[in-house]
């Protein structure tokens, strides 16, 4: 059945992947169903909530709004690709550490998207102001935290020096 679909090649989290899929299949569904990268979540499915945020060729995008054919040849980073090698005893990305330490993650549905939007923000604004954080995350909705702890998490992650302090705060809980 899949023979009639084109082969789409992408670099996903640094690895060359090829899948066969209908060209109008959403990148979100290809990530979750074909590549089993279920960290990326579906919220609204219409580009309003940011749960499905991933990075494509260095830009933040909503994977629910991308026909997979348009990802042909692209470099995709999902939440699974944030920390280099996630295994027991491995290290988390500073943003993940900060979300843990500051209570930035609660139910978890928005968290992967928040992390990707925050990672994008820190790349363009390594020391963001609160206003810049608010703008960078404005497309990502959270119904648990009231946002303040997420903003605090991003601020904390942007302050390199606070990393040991963050870990300490986390372990003290």
């Amino acid at each position, binding site marked *: 059945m899949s023979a009639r679909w084109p082969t789409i090649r992408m670099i996903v989290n640094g690895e060359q992947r090829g899948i066969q*899929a*209908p*060209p*109008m*299949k*959403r990148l979100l*569904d290809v990530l979750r169903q074909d590549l089993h990268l279920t960290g990326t979540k*579906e919220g609204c*499915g*219409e*580009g*309003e909530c*940011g749960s499905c*945020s991933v990075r494509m060729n260095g*830009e*933040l*995008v*909503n994977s*629910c*709004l*991308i*026909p997979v*054919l*348009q990802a*042909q040849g692209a470099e995709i980073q999902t939440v699974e690709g944030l920390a280099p090698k996630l295994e027991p005893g491995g290290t988390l990305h500073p943003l993940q550490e900060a979300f843990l330490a500051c209570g930035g993650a609660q139910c978890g549905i928005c968290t992967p998207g928040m992390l990707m*939007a925050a990672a*994008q*923000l820190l790349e363009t604004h390594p020391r963001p102001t609160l206003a810049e954080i*608010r*703008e*960078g995350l*404005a*497309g*990502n909705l959270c119904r648990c935290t009231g946002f303040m702890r997420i903003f605090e998490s991003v601020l904390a992650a942007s302050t390199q020096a606070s990393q040991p302090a963050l870990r300490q705060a986390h372990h003290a809980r």
Partner: protein
Amino acid sequence: MRGNPETHELVAPGSLAAVLHLMAVEPGAWTPIAGGTELMVAHAAGRLNAPKLVSLWGVPELRFVHATDESIVVGAGATFADLRRSALITEELPLLAKAASWIGSIANQSRATLGGNLVNGSPAADSSPALLVYDAEIEIISARDSRRIPYHKFHTGYKRNALAVDELLYAVHLPRRFGHHRQYLRKVGTRRAMAISKVALGATAFIETGVIREIRLGAASLAAFPTRLHRTEDALLNKPITNDLIQTGRNAILTEALPIDDIRSTAEYRRRVAANLLEEFLFELLGVEKRP
């Protein structure tokens, strides 16, 4: 996800010539899709009425911002992130840069294109008031021809435009002669980010010794499509800026605006806010920060 991806064909020929060729061979059969921020929403909801789509994403000839002596030219495939990053836009066309920053979120701005915003033709389109008051021209291309029309003649009805079935919006030309104009753009929505406009008003005016020598007003959500407010402009043109003139302007826009009631707002609210926005701009021209 109610749509079925298997029922849609999507091709990506990769070059402008190849896209135009497809559209010439089967006129009307192919729906162009750029960043997908509109059509993919329809697709997810199962209401995408487009069996055959041709991708404009990644067509290099459509994604550019460059300057000639007279104009800044923006390719239809330039994203709103491209516009925000372009020094030409932020320095010379600040209203367009501001509008670009209002489009959805960062993730929407990295995909949504200027051409897509215009062809989609929402009455609330964020980029439209700025383009109207900068007197933009639209360059349209097909395999047979290319032509230019004023942007204020591009929209012809609710979600209808001047494109023939084999034509593509190629570029937007923005004249570089507004540097000495007073400029204004304000959007009123439900929240600061991710909101679709209830009302937006843009304005440019050239003032000479207290007299309005040139004025353009462009509005979103005051009619079935983004429009210039020619009659309100006429009521203000060649008049000295006074408190009386501000009242004249209010009356004119209240008469000319034809908004509707919908899920986002009411016609009455939109008319009043439009008049308040115009008043705010005219008070700025008068040199008064706030209403006395």
